[in-house]
């Protein structure tokens, strides 16, 4: 059998039902195999779109996404999605073509050292050197992407090897002696953590994307509600705890709520779960949570004590650990009354500093209002992807995600252009759900071309562009920290998104009246096929509250 046909068998054995890619010379054999392999292949218009679509698919479904590209420029176009998947721990297998082995190292046509270029931004990579290695490498790639701390894995296959004939036998095991993620969590440590929680007066749970990746949202709620622990999430963790729960403090970090950030600042015990103390969360590290001791639960031991020294480290899968922590905690019979004082302090912050904005007095749409309208129009039940910028932060603040895997954004890398293709991938993975993209007028232009893919494949995403005519987040920083010297942030009136949508075979709409916004949005959501909605919002509105970069939470402004 040709190695590429074996590759198809391996993909099927891994349960792959869809891949995103674009062919070229070096992966022609692979594409010949796709011709009748019976695996859905979605032809994207740019490999970066395919990579982000695979991420969106993975984030929405929890399954491994797959993206393909040819050698050279095809492969390098995948670099941003690979890095994005690394930063946000997204399980994606990237399969790239490579020039024929005899050309390797000769600067052959479309040769790029993909393994070398991607090395710093992959969980692992495989350079195929013998066609016999292909089946095993593919399975190992999926195993690595999916297990432990998920992440991107690259498999680079030289063209001549991919068309070689090999005897194919299904592979049922992986041989990765250097890879044994710890998932259990040490019981003794769990017991100490329970005791610490029982003795804390001002505890808080700080949950990150690891809770979502682990599928431990229900277990987190169990833990939080076995007493009355306040909960905050990172931008990656949203949906890991219900955004409407009375113990929910809102997101923390640079654009988090004051209640969440102040509670972190004053806590005596912080229970970090699948979170990595990113600088957007900690602000000035030396002044971060100065009174707190830390329980740190993470599947990646290298995250523990990387930025903030942990007092009670627990390495393992949150899904295994949280129920045991809850059980241990319950057995201690702690007095919930001791948290009264803490809660009354938190309630004061919540009452004094809710998320707020000044609404317009005319028909102008404030960006925050736009998110609230979308929440209403979707009943809070959509899968929401977003791009990067102010609109992303407003979406994170105002769309109270009820469940995990409903919020799909680029947190670690902050990749403009992520939203539209990620929504496409999410919709392919969850065809029965409403999938919307909250896009920036700047960001959306970075992967706009995938609207053609959506039209061709009938992928009915609803893209709502928050159009402020600016690279808004950069404009905000220039306004606040650079004397209002707006340098290269005004994008004027272009393009005409409605016409563009039509050119791509999608429905284009323009909305600018707040009074009809909810019903107009509902209409857009009810329209068949892909829809692109140009929502005109206030041009110069700032995302608040905000911890200025490098400052402590206490210094929140706005």
């Amino acid at each position, binding site marked *: 059998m040709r190695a590429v046909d074996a590759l198809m068998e391996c993909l099927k054995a891994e349960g792959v039902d869809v891949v995103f890619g674009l062919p070229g010379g070096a992966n022609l054999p692979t594409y010949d195999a796709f011709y009748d392999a019976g695996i859905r292949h979605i032809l994207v218009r740019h490999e970066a779109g395919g990579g982000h679509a695979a991420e969106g698919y993975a984030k929405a479904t929890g399954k491994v996404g797959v993206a393909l590209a040819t050698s050279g420029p095809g492969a390098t176009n995948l670099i941003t999605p690979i890095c994005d998947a690394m930063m946000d721990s997204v399980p994606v297998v990237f399969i790239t073509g490579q020039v024929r082995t005899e050309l390797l190292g000769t600067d052959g046509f479309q040769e790029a050292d993909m393994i070398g270029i991607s*090395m710093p931004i992959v969980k692992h990579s495989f350079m195929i*050197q013998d066609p016999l290695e292909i089946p095993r490498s593919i399975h190992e790639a999926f195993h690595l992407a999916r297990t432990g701390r998920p992440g991107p894995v690259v498999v680079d296959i030289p063209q001549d090897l991919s068309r070689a004939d090999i005897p194919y036998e299904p592979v049922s095991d992986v041989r990765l002696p250097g890879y044994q993620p710890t998932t259990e969590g040490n019981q003794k440590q769990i017991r100490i953590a329970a005791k610490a929680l029982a003795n*804390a007066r001002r505890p808080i749970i700080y949950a990150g994307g690891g809770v979502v990746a682990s599928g431990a949202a229900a277990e987190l709620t169990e833990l939080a509600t076995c007493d009355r622990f306040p909960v905050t999430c990172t931008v990656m963790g949203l949906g890991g705890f219900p955004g409407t729960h009375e113990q929910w403090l809102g997101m923390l970090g640079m654009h988090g709520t004051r209640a969440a950030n102040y509670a972190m600042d004053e806590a005596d015990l912080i229970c970090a779960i699948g979170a990595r103390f990113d600088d957007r969360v900690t602000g000035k590290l030396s002044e971060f949570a100065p009174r707190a001791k830390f329980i740190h639960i993470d599947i*990646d031991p290298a995250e523990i004590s990387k930025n903030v*020294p942990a*007092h009670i480290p627990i390495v393992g899968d949150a899904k295994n650990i949280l129920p045991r922590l809850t059980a241990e905690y319950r057995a201690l*019979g702690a*007095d919930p009354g001791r948290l009264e004082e803490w809660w009354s302090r938190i309630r004061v912050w919540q009452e004094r500093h809710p998320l707020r904005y000044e609404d317009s007095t005319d028909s102008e749409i404030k960006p925050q209002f736009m998110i609230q309208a979308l929440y209403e129009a979707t009943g809070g039940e959509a899968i929401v992807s977003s791009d990067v910028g102010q609109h992303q932060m407003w979406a994170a603040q105002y769309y109270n995600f009820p469940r995990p895997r409903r919020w799909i954004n680029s947190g670690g890398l902050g990749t403009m252009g992520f939203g539209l293709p990620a929504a496409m991938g999410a919709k392919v993975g969850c065809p029965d759900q409403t999938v919307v993209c909250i896009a920036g007028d700047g960001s959306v232009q970075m992967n706009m071309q995938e609207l053609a893919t959506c039209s061709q494949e009938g992928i009915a995403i609803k893209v709502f562009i928050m159009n402020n005519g600016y690279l808004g987040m950069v404009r905000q920083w220039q306004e606040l920290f650079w004397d209002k010297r707006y340098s290269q942030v005004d994008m004027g009136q272009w393009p005409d998104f409605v016409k563009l949508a039509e050119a791509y075979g999608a429905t284009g709409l323009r909305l600018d009246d707040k009074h009809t916004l909810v019903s107009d949005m509902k209409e857009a959501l009810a329209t068949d096929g892909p829809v692109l909605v140009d929502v005109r919002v206030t041009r110069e509105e700032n995302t608040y509250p905000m911890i200025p970069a490098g400052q402590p939470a206490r210094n929140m402004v706005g």
Partner: protein
Amino acid sequence: MGEPATKEVLSLDELEAVSGLRTGRKHILSILVENKPGVLTRIAGLFARRGFNIDTLAVGPTDDERLSRITLTLDGALHPIDQVTKQLHKLVNVLKIRDLEPRETLARELAMFKVSADGASRAEVMQLCEIFRGKVVDVTKRSLVIELTGTCEKVDAFEQLVRPFGLIEMARTGEIAIARGRSET
């Protein structure tokens, strides 16, 4: 702070942060890796990316042809060693890492010194060489090449002593190490 909340008292004040600490001494890491292309690049790249400084690095085969051993020395005053080893462990091709205990470790490196040695100084250099149990492996009218093995501290000491005579060139391998006694490194 009022009554304890539970009978199982644990004072938060007594909890101590674990790891992330700098030891302040030199560390020798013995790393067993799969003998596959690109593994050294992955390790070197990791160190560069995370800003870990390698003092010396030596790579060679082991008794098992599928494995190589990388011996690294680095300064525990500059880096939290546990963070270094945890990051290394994330590399799939890394099988085993030992942070070798100095007292239970035999560490050696090989060094070659090209020293100018004419007339008067020659005898003196050769005497130093003898004291350090070095070997003269090349002689010309005006120079000697000395081969020396020992711990990196011994090689440093020798370097200091011959420098005044005119050190023309020096090449060092970096330390390799093995655990004392019967147990595996």
